[in-house]
């Protein structure tokens, strides 16, 4: 019955037009803080570089999560993958070189993605429950692995490549962000793989009827999500010169919010990579602006909530007027 599709689609129609609204929100928040923080360091290149560098792991996670959401899955395990991959990478660096350490860390992501995907698709159960389960398991493993000890990294090339380095004055963290985002953008918007992802998220039965291997596509999406999280783990490790079991712990809700505000549907079928990136920068900018504005922690929390609400509201206003 097309009411059903109209239902979803009318809602989505509203939302699709909203894809553009992240630009307005971003601009609004930027101008807001620029006005509020005129005589501070807010409007400086180094502060913006700072925000971009700080949010690099978040951005990569957001880009990865976009894939999972595109097919209609949620992946709650990404935060725990960040910690485990960082720890594995840091531990391997004590014994081997960068290539193996990076491989090992990424393998954490691939393995978790596979496990998530196989469980969800084989058992045909809720991605929320399964990834909640794997999140617990992985967090436990990460805590057990070094018994809550931090693992330092002294390999200078590693911390250069994944953290503090710059190439031609461009911070590597920015390069990582841009390369991964560009790749994701092309896959989603220019390749047939992206079409299939969105088709599976938009109407899995129709996609299946057209011969798309729905199960496999969903599996790839979950792989993308957790492999991106593993890379984010390496970036955290590079920045912090070490790994800790708490890494990534607090990122989950921020990442989901960033992706959602960027125009990706939480129910599948609609995805926007540029939105995810701007969304995560937005979160970074709000944090930074609020800290600079000298609010107390409590006031910051209140203000962050209000800004989020106003931002969402503005996005919609924009749509209604246009």
């Amino acid at each position, binding site marked *: 019955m097309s009411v059903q599709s109209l239902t979803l689609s009318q809602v989505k129609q509203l939302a699709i037009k909203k894809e553009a609204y992240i630009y307005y929100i971003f601009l609004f928040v930027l101008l807001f803080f620029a006005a509020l923080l005129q005589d*501070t*360091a807010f409007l*400086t290149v*180094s*502060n913006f570089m*700072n925000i971009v*560098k*700080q949010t690099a792991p978040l951005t990569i996670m957001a880009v990865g999560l976009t894939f999972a959401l595109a097919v209609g899955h949620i992946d709650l395990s990404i935060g725990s993958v960040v910690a485990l991959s960082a720890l594995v990478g840091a531990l391997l660096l*004590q014994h081997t070189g960068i290539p193996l350490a990076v491989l090992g860390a990424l393998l954490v992501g691939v393995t978790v993605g596979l496990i998530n995907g196989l469980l969800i698709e084989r058992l045909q159960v809720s991605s929320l429950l399964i990834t909640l389960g794997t999140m617990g398991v992985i967090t436990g493993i990460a*805590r057990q692995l070094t*018994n*809550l*000890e*931090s*693992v*330092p990294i*002294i390999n200078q090339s590693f911390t250069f490549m994944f*953290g*503090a380095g710059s190439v031609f004055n461009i911070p590597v963290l920015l390069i990582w962000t841009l390369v991964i985002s560009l790749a994701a953008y092309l896959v989603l918007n220019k390749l047939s793989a992206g079409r299939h992802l969105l088709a599976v998220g938009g109407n899995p039965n129709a996609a299946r009827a057209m011969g798309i291997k729905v199960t496999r596509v969903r599996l790839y999406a979950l792989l993308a999500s957790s492999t991106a999280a593993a890379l984010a783990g390496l970036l955290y490790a590079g*920045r*912090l*010169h*070490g790994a*800790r079991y*708490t*890494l990534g*712990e*607090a990122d989950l809700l921020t990442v989901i919010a960033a992706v959602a505000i960027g125009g990706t549907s939480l129910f599948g079928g609609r995805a926007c990579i540029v939105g995810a990136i701007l969304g995560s920068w937005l979160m*970074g900018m709000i*944090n*930074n602006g609020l*800290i*600079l504005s000298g609010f*107390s*922690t*409590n006031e910051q929390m209140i203000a962050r909530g209000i800004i989020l609400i106003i931002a969402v509201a503005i996005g919609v206003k924009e749509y209604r007027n246009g």
Partner: protein
Amino acid sequence: LNLDNLHDAEKSANVVLSAKQIQQLKAKKLTAALAWHGSSTWVSAVTNGAKQAFEELGIKVVAITDAQFDPAKQVADLENISAMNPDIILSLSVDSTSTKATYAQTISNGAKLVLLSNPIEGFVHGKDYAGIVTDDMFGMGKAAAELTSDALENNGKLGIIFHDANYFITNNRDQAFREAIQQYPHISVISEKGFVKEHETSNIAAAMVLQNPDLQAIYVSWDSAAEGVIEALRSLDRPDIKVITHDLGVNNLLDMATDGNLYATVADRPFDIGATMAKIGAGAILNKPAAPVTIVPFDKVTKHNIATVWQHAFKTSLPKLLNQALTQ
């Protein structure tokens, strides 16, 4: 009971059990449970100390819980533990108001309670609880101020990043630091910001430094929170800013050993805290009275004494990488 003045507190070194008492305890086949507030390497070290001391006394540890800083979870933990009827409970209360009734319920079953740092209002020493073991929070805060003054050579601009949550130990240490640092007329605190979760400190430090480029040192509540601060300073390329904190962590000690941003830290002795708590709890079974408050000493840590202090605190050998860095 007032913990603000720890001068008359018992020293942990004085808590000992005689050979005869140990024999008596071994014969009793006792059980113990540990109801902690959270998890960290620090808590693990306390657990290790307690476990080792209990083992020497033939006491079995039947449960270890982690309330994840949630009083409701701690109450549930204590209820679950009391289903096992342990003889001794070692605990750090997340929130004394919320947990009081449950502690009371638990000890009414006969368990001996030993508290870590956080007193329970209205509890009577010797009746409701056997004793409190604590580190010298005020001494530590003051020591951190002294180290800060050393770092700045008694003259300079300081930033404070404090724990903005209601948590007994960190609040007391931060407050003691604040008060002590005011005694140094040439050190000015030019920025003070709070954090709730450890991961926030990186953003906060970066913002603080961008806003106050003339900053020379930062005090931050504890080690893992300091990791973010040091990361931000590295990322902003500010090796000149010194960081002073509390507790020991490999990552930051490595930074200190390689002449990074971390100037000094103040370390207590978690292993001894655990061992002392265990002994007080066991003693209480034999009706051996303990002091209301027993304090465990602390050490000021700078580059040259890392190895010794590590041994004091954790009773384990120095991690390999750290050892390498120090002997280079």
